[in-house]
């Protein structure tokens, strides 16, 4: 009886098996179908969460910038060109950076607000007027003139500079943000963008070029390039534009890590708000001897003192050796008596 029951159960299971297989196959094919539908949708999303297709991206743009972005949004299009000075213009726009920029938020966000001229033809006429900062910011003429004068003392304006500079060479108007919002990385990006990639005659990486510094990685990470590559001489704005030749950049620890030095008077903590001067406590944390309390005069006196002690003991030892008349002095017949 028991035997028969087991057989019937087994037979039922065998009959059910094809049904189960069929259900499983159907479910799996539906899941596969769902995957093939969903996968491209995920892939078409960009990092900033926008639709990844060109049409999707264009549709999501504010109407003011939509007409131009059909071409200028596409980083794959060869829209870069060199002008007569050798300056490489990147004509594709980083939309996320533009939308975060002060120019976008100012309300004058349409491309035509700055780029006046005929842009109906492609390629655009070369004689279209080039917008400058003063095209809009005429009320800052005096301040800009001061910055411009400072910039003209920089290596970027040296007679042998490889190209002509203007404000936009370093500060792209399409990603311009208020200085108080910038982190150290934002600030340094303006320098690193060129000097790590586009203009790097030595071929060395940033870390290799600064390898002489005992704490290179820490400084590259925490302070701005201009903190060392400019000097706080003379009146001017907090953020200097007279980038000096590398030989004139700060390389002495004591120039920053000391009382009333560059670090307290000139540099600042950039993160979160306007630059604030470091406190001495911040400076001395972990730095107390490598500059924070270092006195060059004391260093010299200390080394001289130790040298004198070493010389004194050395001389005393030499005299002792001579005096025992078995050493070099006897050989040279310097001793008064023979042994």
């Amino acid at each position, binding site marked *: 009886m028991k035997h028969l029951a087991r057989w019937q159960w087994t037979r039922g299971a065998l009959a059910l098996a094809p049904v189960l297989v069929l259900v499983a196959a159907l479910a799996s094919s539906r899941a596969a179908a769902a995957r093939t539908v969903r996968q491209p949708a995920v892939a078409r999303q960009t990092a900033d969460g926008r639709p990844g297709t060109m049409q999707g991206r264009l549709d999501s743009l504010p109407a003011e910038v939509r007409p131009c972005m059909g071409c200028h949004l596409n980083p794959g299009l060869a829209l870069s060109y060199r002008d007569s000075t050798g300056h490489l213009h990147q004509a594709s726009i980083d939309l996320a950076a533009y939308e975060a920029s002060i120019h976008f938020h100012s309300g004058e966000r349409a491309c035509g607000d700055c780029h006046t001229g005929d842009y109906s033809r492609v390629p655009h006429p070369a004689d279209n007027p080039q917008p400058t900062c003063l095209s809009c910011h005429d009320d800052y003429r005096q301040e800009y003139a001061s910055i411009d004068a400072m910039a003209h003392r920089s290596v970027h304006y040296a007679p042998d500079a490889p190209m002509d500079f203007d404000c936009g060479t370093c500060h792209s108007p399409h990603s311009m943000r208020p200085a108080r919002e910038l982190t150290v990385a934002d600030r340094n990006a303006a320098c690193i963008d060129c000097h790590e990639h586009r203009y790097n005659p030595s071929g060395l990486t940033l870390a290799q070029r600064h390898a*002489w510094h*005992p704490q290179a990685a820490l400084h590259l990470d925490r302070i701005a390039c201009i903190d060392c590559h400019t000097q706080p001489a003379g009146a001017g704005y907090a953020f200097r534009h007279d980038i000096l030749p590398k030989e004139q950049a700060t390389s002495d620890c004591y120039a920053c890590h000391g009382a009333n030095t560059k670090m307290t008077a000139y540099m600042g903590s950039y993160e979160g708000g306007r630059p604030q001067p470091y406190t001495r406590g911040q400076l001395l944390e972990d730095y107390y*001897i490598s500059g924070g309390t270092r006195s060059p005069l004391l*260093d010299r006196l200390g080394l001289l*003192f130790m040298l004198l002690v070493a010389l004194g003991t050395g001389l005393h030892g030499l*005299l*002792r050796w001579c005096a025992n008349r078995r050493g070099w002095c006897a050989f040279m017949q310097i001793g008064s008596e023979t042994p």
Partner: protein
Amino acid sequence: MKDVYMVTRPERTWHWVNAAGIVVLALSGLNIHFAREFNLFGTLPAAIAVHNLVGILVSINYMAWALYLVRTGRIRYYAPDHDDLAGGLLRQTRYYLFGIFHDAPHPFEEGAARKFNPLQKWTYLGIMTVLLPLQVVTGLWLFHLIQAWQDAGTALFQVLGVAHTVLAILLTAFLIGHVYLATTGDTPWAHFRMMLTGYAASHVEAIPEERGNKS
């Protein structure tokens, strides 16, 4: 001439741990102070880590040594007596300046009752009761291990930082003189032998009245 047991095993252990520690502290301190010019430890953070660690070891070693001397009463060897005043200092100085070149006998020979000549005793007293404790305290304070007055402002940082440097200069100068003077025993190796084995060859008996009156 007989061998007298002068330096006990704990004293010798303390001495060589201290010696090695101070050499490492001096070198890592130089590395930290002249980070760019003297990069012996590879990176500045490595030198700082070594300096902090060895500084704590030497501080503990110092406290253990002081405790040992007090508990065993061997601190008496550091106590100045009549011989260590001006007269004794002058005799010892004269010996180093003149007598030593003419094989004159040591004015204060070490024996069971006296370990140090007057110059040595005052120097060791100064080093061990003033310079080294100050160096330990300033070092621990700069390493934020002493919490008192950490918020006293930057002036104290400046003063103690410079004091730590000055003390380091004095201690390093002492180290050079100490190693050299260690060669002025009966033979150049006699004092090194004593600090390794504990035994010194001595002419003097352990009678307080006779000590130091050989010349």
